[in-house]
């Protein structure tokens, strides 16, 4: 039983079929002038158009296919910061961003940019007033995630974006890896300048993602070479990855109302079940957050212990975020949210998707309470990290 969909999802079989068919019938280089090349290019452009249409971004935005949100974030942030360095070197992000945003800003800081890291409120979201206070005439870039990957908190991107647009001339980047295909965000007519996401978070393939950016924005690329993707991302563009992403996005968007409603009932049940387990605390909120992500701190137990014990029952959850488990012993997100080191050290994440069934949720609820009690008993109290 898999409860780690925020880390990645299994590719939809339909998406795999598209990937295979494109590799069989449209494998030519889209830049080639011959007929196979033209066919591949037609497919690539149609996939691009479909992505923009599904994101409500057709009028004002374009789409660059990348290897995933990490690359999109790197391209967007480094590009936007560098392109506007002459105007100012102040950049803003929040304390709960994904490593692929956080680390890029840390790098920019080492290169001479001044970084303001905004705190989040009790829901895990950035307050507009806090953002307003941080904006300065030399602020050139603000990056705030749409849905947080560890606790599921949602930033009001439209409202925050409007603050940025009325108070400054900064570009607004949104890491939407946890929301695209799950929680709608219309881009045309809105304040978002740059949006990153990965296909594998919505039943697409790993190694595939996109950066959606406003038409008027041009960035220096990370990868130089043949000038593919309007010069923003050199390297032979893969029509199969692009088509698979477009297909996965269509399937996800078509089902997203239903998946959202179901996930919400599941989250309610799981949160209710944890209320009966002593010394556990929900990180984030039930209302106004992503129903797909649930985060708890379980006092006095190392999260790895819970993870291992559940794994023995073939129930798979995660600690912190899978992307940074190698180094982290605490969740920076939970720490920023609660200010509590102990809670940050003991957090686990349960994440759902459209594939999650009621039976799985039942099994999880029945197993986890006794299992936590048992672990506490055997481990005793003197747990160190």
């Amino acid at each position, binding site marked *: 039983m898999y409860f780690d969909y925020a880390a990645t999802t299994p590719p939809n079989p339909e998406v795999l079929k*598209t990937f295979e068919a494109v590799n069989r019938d449209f494998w030519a280089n889209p830049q080639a002038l011959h007929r196979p090349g033209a066919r591949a290019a037609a*497919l690539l452009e149609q*996939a691009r158009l479909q992505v923009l249409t599904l994101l409500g971004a057709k009028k004002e935005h374009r789409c660059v296919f990348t290897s995933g949100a990490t690359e999109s974030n790197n391209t967007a942030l480094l590009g936007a910061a560098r392109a506007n360095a002459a105007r100012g070197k102040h950049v803003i992000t929040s304390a709960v961003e994904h490593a692929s945003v956080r680390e890029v800003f840390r790098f920019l800081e080492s290169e001479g940019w001044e970084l303001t890291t905004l705190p989040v409120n009790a829901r895990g979201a950035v307050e507009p007033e806090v953002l307003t206070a941080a904006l300065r005439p030399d602020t050139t870039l603000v990056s705030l995630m749409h849905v947080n990957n560890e606790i599921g908190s949602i930033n009001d991107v439209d409202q925050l974006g409007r603050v940025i647009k009325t108070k400054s001339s900064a570009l607004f980047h949104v890491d939407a890896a946890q929301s695209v295909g799950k929680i709608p965000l219309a881009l045309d007519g809105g304040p978002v300048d740059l949006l990153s996401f990965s296909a594998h978070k919505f039943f697409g393939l790993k190694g595939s993602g996109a950066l959606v950016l406003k038409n008027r924005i041009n960035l220096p690329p990370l990868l130089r070479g043949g000038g593919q993707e309007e010069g923003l991302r050199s390297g032979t563009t893969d029509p199969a990855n692009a088509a698979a992403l*477009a297909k996965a996005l269509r399937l996800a968007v078509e089902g997203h109302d239903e998946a959202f409603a179901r996930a919400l009932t599941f989250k309610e049940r799981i949160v209710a079940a944890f209320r009966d387990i002593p010394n556990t605390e929900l990180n984030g909120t039930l209302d106004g957050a992503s129903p797909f992500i649930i985060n708890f701190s379980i006092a006095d137990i190392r999260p790895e212990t819970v993870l291992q014990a559940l794994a023995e029952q073939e129930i798979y959850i995660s600690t912190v975020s899978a992307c940074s488990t190698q180094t982290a012993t605490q969740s920076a997100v939970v720490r920023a949210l609660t200010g509590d080191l102990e809670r940050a050290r003991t957090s686990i994440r349960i994440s759902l998707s459209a594939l999650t069934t009621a039976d799985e949720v039942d099994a999880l609820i029945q197993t986890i309470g006794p299992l936590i009690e048992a672990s506490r008993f055997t481990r005793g109290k003197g747990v160190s990290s």
Partner: protein
Amino acid sequence: MKYDVIMVRLGELFLKGKNRNVFIDKLFQTAKAKLAVFPDLVIDKTRDHILITLRGADHEAVVKRLDLVFGIHSYALGKICDSTLEAIRETALPVAIEACRDGNSIKFETRRGWKQFPLTSIETSQRVAEHVGENAPEGAIHFNVARPDQVVRVFIKPKHSLVVAKVVPASGGLPVGLNGRSLLMLSGGLDSPVAGYLMMKRGLLLEGIHFESPPYTTARARQKVYDLAEKMAHYLPRGSFLIHVIPFTKLQKEIFASVPESYGMTVMRRMMYRVAEGVAESRNIRLLSNGESLGQVASQTPDSMWAINAVTDLPVIRPVACMDKQEIMDIARKIDTYDISIRPFEDCCTVFVPKHPVTAPKKEKCELYETRFDWAPLVEACVENAETIKIEAGRPIALDRDTTDEICSLL
């Protein structure tokens, strides 16, 4: 605000004396054809305007369609009501408030087409203004009878009356078809579709001529031209654009085999003009047009234009000759051809670009070089073998139909 009627005001009518009715008819027919997609509209022609009763249709969508019709000066949006003073006063109130938004000042003007109406025009205006002044929220209305920003017009007719205020500028120009026809040289670049748009705006019906050099140019270049033609077809009254595709390979090869490289481009363009003249003649067209712009490339210097233009007696209009690239790009975006034009495929002009084209060619030299090969039959063959394709607005032709279907099934 929800509007009931669009009053379409006609442009440049005052220039036309006896042709006025022809002009209005042409415009009326075109507008009617373009609005056929809204079956509920009622469209009436009056002496100096066209009145569209929306009957629930979205005024913005209707105006967007009307933007495809040249010869319209502006649209006035308004509401409809019974022909009683009471009803007119009630209807005028929200219209006036809307008109005064952004601090605009207004005055009322009445035209009493129905003389049985108990008040005179002036009295009506006064009574309506009085009502609006008394009933509008404090500060919502600014009157300025001497120099209003906007005139709110009341039209009194027997069956119903109109209160009209908000004026939206339209595309302008002259109704297409009023000024005859022109053959547009359509390369696939940014400039020629914009030139075509401007020609149509001056009331000309257009046909296109495109030179193709397979295998040096690809099917994608032809697709590009089809897609551009489709965009332009929207502005034509019948919504269809004829494009003559010229098989140019043989002639082009002969040119570059016989003429020094530096003169290749000049002679090639002379041949293109000759072919265009031949096609124009066969179509009874007396005017050529193209997207040449002064100073952009070697063929667009005054000397070069002179040397090239010398081969034809037909007038050649170059609507974008004096425009900046930015202006051209702005129009291309407006007419939706920009994204098509920037697709990176070779056309005839870019296939054999000489390294050092002559920028001040001599006509005599062109003539001398042309004696070196027997071009006349090749030009004739180009005209004769032209492939004529009809492109309909809203129905783009995909050259690779199989691929299109396949792609749809995969995504």
